[in-house]
């Protein structure tokens, strides 16, 4: 099993945190994992993306060029990466921010109004984690213990008061 996952959006949407969460999920499951961010000018307020690889074998390239799963958090990412998703793969996107209809018919497509759901449920800023929940539902054998343990590892100690909100966002995305 090897899943190559690309997460892309604006800086500030929690793209890197999203990716680190998936990497921690992989570690909880004793998988090989890699996490590779875009860096440089993007980090200073443009686009942000990161590639995560989860595999039961040692990982060769950490570059995610043709993702099995794409999480698109904004329109530029949706436009740039929809065509890159591997045939048979999955695209998950924030349909509050992306009103355009997907064009691929050979992939599974899930539009989730994550930004609206986050605002309606007191989870402002956690739209990304709602989409992360949707990514988890596209991965095999993810149970509640793994979801919670990875979250504890992923949230820095000083922000542990955000644990419950993050868990709620994940659950919404998995539903």
């Amino acid at each position, binding site marked *: 099993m090897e899943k190559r996952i690309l997460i892309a959006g604006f800086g500030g949407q929690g793209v890197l945190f999203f990716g680190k969460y998936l990497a921690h999920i992989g570690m909880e499951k004793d998988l090989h994992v890699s996490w*590779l961010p875009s*860096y440089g000018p993007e980090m200073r307020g443009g686009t942000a993306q990161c590639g995560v690889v989860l595999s039961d074998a040692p990982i060769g*390239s950490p570059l995610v060029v043709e993702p099995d799963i794409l999480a698109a958090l904004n329109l530029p990412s949706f436009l740039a990466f929809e065509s890159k998703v591997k045939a048979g793969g999955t695209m998950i996107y924030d349909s509050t921010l992306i009103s355009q209809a997907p064009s691929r018919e050979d992939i599974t497509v899930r539009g989730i109004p994550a930004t609206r759901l986050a605002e309606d449920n007191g989870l402002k800023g956690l739209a990304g984690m709602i989409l992360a929940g949707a990514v988890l539902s596209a991965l095999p054998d993810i149970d509640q213990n793994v979801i919670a343990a990875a979250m504890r590892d992923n949230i820095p100690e000083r922000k542990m008061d955000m644990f419950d909100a993050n868990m709620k966002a994940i659950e919404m995305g998995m539903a």
Partner: protein
Amino acid sequence: MSEKILIKGNEALAEAAIAAGCRHFFGYPITPQNELAAHMSRRMPQMEGVYLQAESEISAVNMVYGASAAGVRCMTSSSSPGISLKAEGLSYLAGCDLPAVVVNVQRGGPGLGGIQPSQADYFQATKGCGHGDYRMIVLAPNSVQEMYDHTYASFALADKYRMTVMILTDGLLGQMMEPVEVAGGEQTVFDKPWAVAQGKDKQVVNSLFLKPDALEKSNLDRFAKYRRVEDDEQRYEGYQLDDADIVVAAYGASSRIARNAIDEARSRGIKAGLLRPITLWPFPKTAFAKAAERARAFISVEMSMGQMIEDVELAIRCSRPVTLCNRVGGVAPDPKMILDAILEAKEKAI
């Protein structure tokens, strides 16, 4: 097995240095190595060590020169253009036979270049980047775990041979995160009778020899030491190498990508294998010579315009065709182009 932590390659380098007893770090900011210095700035005060951001790369390397002469384990890090600035200091370190660990998290060049990953400083690292006859031991990790392990080992190597050990890595490995086991083991402590220190008799650490005979002797002695390093410290990893007809040579980030291409070639029944130098100097000549006994062709996969390929050709005495498969300027090769190079080499050679 101890617990694994998820950290960036740059942070793993810093942690490994601290674990190895490095308490003196001198740096200057440059992307894509900044996380290393930033991590040191947080950790060194906790360890009662010295973190000093110098006013330039040149100052930083000369602070290493001074700290090393005083006998302590010390380190500096930078990325490509900054390493060029350190070149003079690296030559002086060699001329004084001082141990030091220097990290280059490579970015695209020449000039200011770009900030994306590159391997274009291979010549600079392996052929001596400053003036004069000298060598550095050059270690090339290819995972975040190896960033930790090789850095941890580098301080003892530097002390053992009184040489600079360069960790030659790149923006991809520096920026990526992987789980790391921070183990370590015992560090050998080296007696340093040559070091200058308070309360000791006068010691001179110097690279100036105005009498040609004395300078010649210092060079000859140093090169006798380098020959021992060449005999004892060649390191490499083979993957699917034993029966390989086509041998892919790659180090660092590009070796990981090459591994995917080799798996794909094997699934098509092509006997391709990877010979990954871990020490770029001393280059693992013996392993290459042995691989050439069976292999029909070699491919050098690089993120440079054909630098390591020269060492591959030399190591196998040009006894087999060697082709170049590369991307540059901050672009990494993809497995498909490496697979195509393997298919082409097979077509021509077999």
